[in-house]
Each structure stands twice: as structure tokens, then as C-alpha cells.
């Protein structure tokens, strides 16, 4: 009796948490997104007004485009910076202990809360910040650089800083799984360094890049803290838009936006999965 019950008992707490804090809120968001909002209160209804508002508003479209811009920049930078780091760890660090140690070094920034890490950029990048002071005192510039903080640059910098480990880790993992005899075999068959990378290493690390990209997509698409702290009032993202709408108690509109955002994010993830097969990494 207990034996057949035991596996269910083991997963029951997790299922309960999932049902209460994931499924139920998602359903609620879906339901509320069809409700009406009349300026001071919301009323149960089945109305498509919220969605019509989203798809016809130029502001929303611009916000989405801006979010995609952030996503593209963060994705490219994390990939271009993260891949060499992962490659270095996997192929140029000779011993496993050192690889693990150096990888842990990469994770040190994550021992602090995201928000504190974002706030600590302020004294560095601000108008009177460290970077500007150094540059001005050394005579390189005469006016403080304005783009350092409260700009798209700052937002991308902040997000890269926050999320690059999510790109490095899966790529490192997939590079570590490459059987080193494959590389010897390729060299035996006449492949040089560039050909080995192009023909063997890159294709075999593609699943790692795909998993890293999925992390980046889901994290950046929902971003609002970095956008607000680092972008000042200038930068916009869908996450920030939703947060603003919640702040002004426009729950149905925020819910509809959230549903659309979820849909768009899933669409990107699915298209990544269509291109790259990640099953062998799991």
C-alpha cells in the first residue's frame, strides 16, 4: 500500500508548490487579461479590449522592438565573451581541479544579490563616477561621458554582467563532453586548428550555445530591474511596461501584456529548439 503511494508522496510537496504558485497564477493572469478596467476598478468580463489595445498601440510595438534590441545585444555579447571563456576553461586549463576552481571564480559575482550588484554600478559609471573621474583626470576627456549610465549601453552592460554565467556554464559543459580523441582523430585526418574548431568543436558545442541562448532569452525578455536602475527613465522594456501598469493598478492590461510576453518568449525558445537539437545535453 505504502509502496505504491510513496513516489506520489515524494513529489506531492513540489506539485503543490507548482500548482499554487505557478499554474494557479498563470491561469489567473490568463483570466484577468480578459477582464475590463474602467479607470479605478476592474470587473470580470470576457473582453478582447486589452489585447486589441496592445496590438494597436505604437508604444507597445516600440517597447517590444526595444526589448528585442536589448535581447540581441545581450545575446551577441554574452556569446562572444562567454564562448572564449568556456573554451579556455575546457581546453586550455589542464587539470579538472583547476577547471572547477576557475569556473567557481566566474560564479563569485553571483554570491551577491542582483539588485546590490546593479546599484554598485552607479558610483562607477555615474556623471561624477569613478570611470569619468579617471578619464577626466588623465586628460583623455574634458566632458564627463553621459552614455555610461542611464543609457542603453548601461542596460546592456548590466544585463551582460548579470547573465553571462548562464551562457558560459552550458557551453563549458558541452565543450567538456567532447571526447578528446575526436580532436586527435580530426588532426590525424588532416584537420588544422581552424578546421577542427569549425568541423568538430563548434557543431558539438551548439547544444550548449542553444541552452545558454534559451537562458538569455527568458531572462532578458522579462527584465525590468536592470532596465529601471541602469536605464534611468530613458530605456523601456516590456517587463518595465508591465511593472508600470501594475504600479498604476491596471491589472487586466498588465495581465494581457504578460500573456503576450510569455507567448513571444516561448516562440523564440521554440524556434531555437527547432534549429538546434539539445536532447543529447539533457
Amino acid at each position, binding site marked *: 500500500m505504502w509502496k505504491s503511494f510513496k513516489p506520489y508522496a515524494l513529489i506531492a510537496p513540489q506539485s503543490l508548490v507548482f500548482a499554487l504558485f505557478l499554474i494557479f497564477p498563470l491561469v489567473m493572469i490568463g483570466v484577468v487579461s480578459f477582464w475590463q478596467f474602467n479607470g479605478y476598478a476592474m470587473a470580470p468580463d470576457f473582453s478582447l479590449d486589452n489585447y486589441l489595445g496592445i496590438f494597436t498601440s505604437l508604444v507597445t510595438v516600440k517597447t517590444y522592438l526595444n526589448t528585442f534590441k536589448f535581447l540581441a545585444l545581450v545575446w551577441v555579447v554574452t556569446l562572444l565573451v562567454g564562448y572564449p571563456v568556456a573554451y579556455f576553461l575546457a581546453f586550455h586549463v589542464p587539470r579538472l581541479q583547476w577547471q572547477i576552481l576557475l569556473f567557481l571564480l566566474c560564479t563569485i559575482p553571483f554570491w551577491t544579490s542582483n539588485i546590490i550588484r546593479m546599484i554598485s554600478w552607479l558610483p562607477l559609471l555615474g556623471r561624477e563616477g569613478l570611470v569619468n573621474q579617471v578619464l577626466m583626470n588623465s586628460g583623455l576627456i574634458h566632458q564627463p561621458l553621459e552614455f555610461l549610465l542611464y543609457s542603453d549601453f548601461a542596460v546592456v552592460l548590466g544585463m551582460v554582467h548579470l547573465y553571462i554565467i548562464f551562457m558560459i556554464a552550458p557551453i563549458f559543459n558541452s565543450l567538456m563532453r567532447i571526447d578528446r580523441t*575526436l580532436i586527435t582523430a580530426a588532426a590525424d*585526418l*588532416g584537420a588544422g586548428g581552424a578546421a577542427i574548431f569549425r568541423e568538430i568543436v563548434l557543431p558539438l558545442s551548439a547544444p550548449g550555445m542553444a541552452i545558454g541562448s534559451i537562458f538569455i532569452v527568458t531572462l532578458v525578455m522579462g527584465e525590468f530591474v536592470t532596465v529601471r536602475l541602469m536605464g534611468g527613465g530613458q530605456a523601456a522594456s516590456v517587463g518595465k511596461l508591465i511593472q508600470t501598469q501594475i504600479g498604476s493598478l491596471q491589472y487586466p492590461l498588465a495581465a494581457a501584456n504578460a500573456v503576450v510576453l510569455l507567448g513571444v518568449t516561448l516562440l523564440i525558445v521554440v524556434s531555437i529548439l527547432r534549429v538546434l537539437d539539445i536532447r543529447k545535453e539533457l
Partner: protein
Amino acid sequence: MPDVKAPLTPSPELTAAGASGVCLRSVTKRYGGVTAVENLTLDVPAASYTCLLGPSGCGKTTTMRMIAGHEEITAGDILIGNHRVNGLPPTRRNTAMMFQSYALFPHKTVWGNVDFGLKMRQLSLAERRQRVGEMLEILELSHLGDRKPALLSGGQQQRVALARALVTRPQVLLLDEPLSALDENLRIRTRGELRKLQRQFGMTFIQVTHNQDEAYALSDQVVVMDHGRIDQVGSPAEIFSRPLSRFVANFTGDNNLFSGTVTQVTPQAGQAVIELAVHGLGKILCCGDYAQVGAEAACCVRADLIHLSGLAEASSPGLDRALPPLTARITAIEFTGYITRVFLALEKTGQDLLYKARTPDWTKSCFQEGQVVALSWLQRDCVFLAH
């Protein structure tokens, strides 16, 4: 399987490159303070099949990797077809290697794997197509061209690895334990195919193996290695019947060893008769090339060359028995099919011996477990081991 059909002969240009011999001259490999291969000198004749035989860690794989160019040599010279190849990259040595794990590229199809070496050599697409197609046909893989390696059986993967190595038309093919991942039946069948391919292509094959049956069945020349040195080089028959050292005697067959001191050497036509004083047993006569009186040495008798007789029986006439009769107790009998293995313990010293009989002969003999029997052998079957 290729052995069922008439053999396909490769087109002339496939073998046009011909075969090269390989010479190692005092080759040494050290990793830090550890010596993996020490002062190794070896000649591998062109178009021969040579097996490097030894236990794991004996330096056989390192030797092969040095020939292939995947391992730097610390000292000495490697010559392939009379060209010194020290320091040359693998592709400029005209060698190809087949890896123990096959090292097939998992993201490429069978065709892509076999094509890889040709693609890297930047041959024309037409020539690549023709050569890959031909190679797949020879190895009976044509129907599997677009499969990924993970969807192939072990035997098919092995043939893809072989095709990939052969398609570049190397002069020397290096095979690292090519059969060890296959199950017993497939191994024996594939072994025959390997030998046939080697003859068909006329290439020099050098194979690393730890399995003496494999080495015997495949080789023209067997190189027995231990602790980074060559112990003995010879034809399979020589290695099997005339081991020169205890290591070779132990490793390459079921031999019974006796250690002792050389007391007398009597030169005879061709070989010397050497008398060995074996502790606890007395004098044993054996045959060898040369021995120093007073040296510590050993001799061995192969398990299938011992003769058992009942205690009451007179020894069979016509055989020149070499010993004062030794007696031993049968401690266990193991039936292994065609051969029955009989474990014996010498009455005088308790030393364990092995006797192998053809099962039909053993069944006729009516010896029982626990019985004490007399042992003897022909003097010429007792081989002197110098070290």
C-alpha cells in the same frame, strides 16, 4: 559480411601509394620522470601485419601514437619509408590511425565521417564522392551512408572507422585495439576481415593489442612489449613455441615455469642442452641458445606438451623423457569445450601446474580429481628462458 562474397578489389589508384616500412631507432618517450618507452628499436617490413602485444601500460599504445605523430618522441628516430618523420604532423607521415573507441564524429553521417579526411585534403568533390563511395562499398556500408554513428551497431561503427582511416590511402595503417569493443563472435569474424583487407590493400598494418590470440591470428610479426621495452620479436609460431623470457612465456600462452640455476651447458647441433638445478625438484634439462653456468634462469613447458601417466605405468617407449619422474596431484579439472584444463600441484614443492588436454583424449584417460599422476615431457619441449 565481406567474407561471404567474392572479395572486391580496390581500384589500382587506391593501392598505388604502396606500402612503406616503419623503422624505430632507439626511440624513447619520457613523461616528466616516467619513462613510457625506453630505447626501442624495431623494423616493421613494408606491407606486413605487425602486432604490438603486451599488457596495459607496457608502452605499446605510446609507441603507436609516436609513429602516428600524436606523441612527441623524447629521443631517437622514426623512419617511415626511409624518411625521418620526427616532428612531422600526422598528415605528412602518410599514416592513418584507427582509434580504440573509433572516435567517429557523432554529428556527422557515415558518409561525412569517411569523407572528412578527403575534405581536409581539399580534393575535388567528384573525387571525394568516388573514393568515399568505393570505400563504403568495399566495407559494405553503402546502404548506411546517411546514418549517424549512434544508430550503427558496434561492428558497423568499427567498419566506418576503418573506412575513414583507409580512404586517405595511407602507407601505414595504425590500429589501436580495433577489436576490443566487439563481442567474441564478431571479434573473430572481423579479425579475418582485417587480415584480408591488409592483403587486399597491400598496406603496412601496425596493430596494438593485449590479446595474444588476436596477435597470433593476424600478424606476420609479433612484438611482445613489457615496461616500455621489447621483450621478443618473432613470428607468431616462434613467440608461441620459443619464448625467450619469463614474461613472454607467461603472457603469450599457458606455460609452466621452473626457476633455477644453470649448472651445465652442452652445445649440440643448432641448440644447447642446458641443465637447470631447480630448487626442490632437482635437475631439469631444457633447450636454449646460450646460457652462462651459474646464472639464475628459468625454463618452461607449455601446458599442452606435458604428458600424464599413471604411477604404475612405465613411461611410454620411444620418448626421451627429460626428467626423473615428477609426481603431481590433480587439484581441479575444468572443461572448456574442446580443451580440458587440468590443474596440478607438484607433490614435492606444491607448485601449481597446468595441463591442457584435448577433451576426447582426457575422457579416454580416466584420471580423477585427487589422483596422483606422473608427469613427463620431451626434452625439446622444455624451453630455456634467459631472464
